[in-house]
């Protein structure tokens, strides 16, 4: 087993395109949940709307990708509005269920036969990324020494991290402003904030929309990184994993999602590479087949991932960056 390969492979994912998608999704969730306390379990819906709108407009109507992205952002904001108008008046737990439901509805509609001529049902959509690729500054694979990407991936990675940096900057600016303070107050007690003359509903809506639009950005990258958009990319689990990413890093911390995403994908890949190398039929077999077959090795990484998530939350419930003191204050 070659550890430098393991590490380089793990870094490739830890810093790579998937990490970018989950990082953006988690940044959106951080605004929703971390700062405002909105339990949005339907981030996948925003990703879906973003990714699908972009892909659909380019594929079906042949408009420019950038314009399509703009429309995607607007539609994500509209979805936030649509979800927000009824649900933001509800208690947090209800919002959670409604957003899960909405995500499921959105995904099933995109995958449905009825809308096949627009969204390609279960096949999804492809061939929309020409405009994006045309701007690719790289002409060949990019090798940073410890990690390398193909030409296309490198471009997505570059664009992705720039986007993330911008989003983080935005979040950082917003959350240290009085606006962010109102959000945090809402997280604690809405009625109190209302009694101080703040339009809680409007703030929540703004937060939902901004987080949703960042979710749509995640959707764009979902589509761009594989040059395809497909209903399985936006399954309910995606939101759960985005939460995982967020909480690994620490909620209500600007860089939480970034660190979380890198760690999440690094670990996931590392486990995969390690375990499959350990159980591979050829080469040195570390773990005999009677204990773990190669297929089981793939499962094992999720098993370990689940365990790791639990252990992390047990021993560092505030995440990597979180503040322990804050947790000790019981909000309930």
């Amino acid at each position, binding site marked *: 087993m070659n550890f430098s390969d393991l590490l380089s492979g793990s870094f490739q994912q830890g810093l790579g395109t998937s990490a970018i998608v989950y990082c953006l999704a988690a940044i959106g969730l951080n605004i929703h949940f971390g700062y405002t306390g909105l339990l949005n379990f339907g981030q996948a819906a925003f990703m879906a709307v973003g990714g699908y709108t972009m892909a659909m407009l380019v594929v079906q109507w042949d408009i420019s990708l950038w314009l399509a992205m703009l429309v995607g952002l607007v539609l994500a904001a509209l979805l936030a509005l649509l979800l927000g108008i009824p649900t933001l008046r509800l208690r947090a737990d209800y919002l959670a269920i409604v957003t899960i439901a909405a995500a499921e509805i959105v995904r099933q509609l995109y995958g449905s036969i009825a809308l096949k001529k627009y969204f390609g049902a279960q096949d999804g959509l492809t061939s929309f990324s020409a405009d994006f690729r045309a701007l690719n500054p790289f002409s060949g694979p990019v090798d940073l020494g410890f990690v390398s990407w193909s030409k296309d991936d490198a471009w997505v990675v570059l664009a992705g991290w720039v986007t993330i940096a911008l989003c983080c900057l935005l979040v950082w600016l917003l959350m240290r402003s009085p606006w962010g303070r109102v959000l945090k107050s809402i997280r604690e007690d809405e009625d109190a904030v209302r009694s101080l003359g703040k339009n809680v509903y409007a703030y929540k809506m703004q937060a939902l929309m901004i987080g949703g639009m960042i979710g749509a950005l995640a959707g764009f990258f979902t589509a761009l990184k594989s040059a395809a958009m497909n209903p399985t990319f936006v399954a309910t689990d995606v939101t759960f994993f985005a939460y995982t990413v967020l909480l690994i890093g620490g*909620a209500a911390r600007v860089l939480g999602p970034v660190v979380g995403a890198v760690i999440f994908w690094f670990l996931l890949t590392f486990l995969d590479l390690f375990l499959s190398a350990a159980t591979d039929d050829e080469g040195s077999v570390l773990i005999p087949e009677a204990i773990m077959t190669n297929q089981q090795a793939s499962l094992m990484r999720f098993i370990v991932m689940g365990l790791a998530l639990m252990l992390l*939350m047990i021993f560092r419930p505030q995440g990597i960056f979180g503040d322990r003191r804050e947790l000790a204050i019981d909000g309930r």
Partner: protein
Amino acid sequence: MRIPALGLLSLVLLPLLLLAGPSHAATASAAPGAPANCAKADRDDGTIHVRVCLRDRRGNANDPVAGVTVRVSDLDGNPIGEAVSDADGLADVNLGEVIDVLGQRYVIEIDTETLPEGTALQNPKDVKRTTEQFQLETDYSVTFPIDDKIEEPSDWDLALNLLATGLVYSAILAMAALGLNMVFGTTGLTNFAHGELMTFGALIAFAIDSMPGEISLFGHDYSVLVACLVGFLASGVFGWLNDKGLWAPLRRRGTGVIAMMIISIGLSIFLRNSYQYLVGGENRNYSQYTDLQPYEIGALRITSLQITVFCIAIGVLVAACCLLQFTRLGKATRAVADNPALAASSGINVDRVINRVWIFGTALAGLSGALLGVTQGFNFQVGYKALLLVFAAVTLGGLGTIWGAIAGAFIIGIFIELSTLVVPDELKYVGALVVLIVVLLIRPQGILGRRERIG
């Protein structure tokens, strides 16, 4: 405890007799489809034929119709051949060599004049078939149904059947929902691993069921039901373990509900993949009840298994509700739910109450999973796939309310089935979820939830 238990027992025992009944007698019933006497010709001469098989199927008969003329022509109307149906009702037209026929298109027409007295096409206007380009190197079979008018299936009959299956499913769902709600109610934990608790019950039942030998009572084989019972009990133990091993220490450390929720997501990922590790990814069936013929009651078709499962579920639900509503433990759970510190100050052993809730809640979930498995097969995701619906049910009914969870489950379960009358089947969950959202718009606190006082 004792009275509900007795009630439960009688509720369960009654339908058990049903299951033991001679429901297999029907197995060897009606012959499948029609005897295919227009059997494929055993011919290997490199030609392709058009074969029209005419049968008079009115009034459930199946008689060959002889003497009917069928013509085949090309798209331009040039005749290629014609044939008259023989004693088997078969009219056979040779189109020619495979090479020549592939890629061609034909028109096949029946001469209704030649139909025997008294027979008529099901659709009298439908006398002509235009084929697509031939792609198969085999004879081309065509039919002109001679049959009664197709009776549109009655929506009411369908609705009745949908309602019945919906009820059964709802009852199972309700147990899981109640289990989830108990845990949520007492600890405030939205347990995303609840689906895996359901799967656990199904898994144990499956393991017991796959052990060699069978478990008989009074000469009837009750292996699967016994396995479910074991699954139920084992789930209780599993719940106990869950709490003692994980949640109780976490509570003691003062871990917040959100962190616990994320831990439950981790647990769910962990358990789900472990299950797959253990049993693989396929659907499997339990050793019994996969070939039960239905009883026909009017338009309703229902099997003894469905009746039994429904009764078991209802019995358990009633027992659980009585337990929660009328016993001291029930009140204690609500008190703990409300304010654990104060409950402790009232002399309630909070940890023990929560532990009990985990035991009961998980046992309910496990039984629900096991029954799901019995009614529709086992799979490592059997509980996971139900989770969203269970959540929806609990929310719809009102978080933390006992009856709410049950009411919600029934609404969701029945709605999913009935909604297929209107929405495409592939979107059947969408319908139910839309209902959820709509209900929450009208009653944000859920159907049976209560508003909070401010100030």
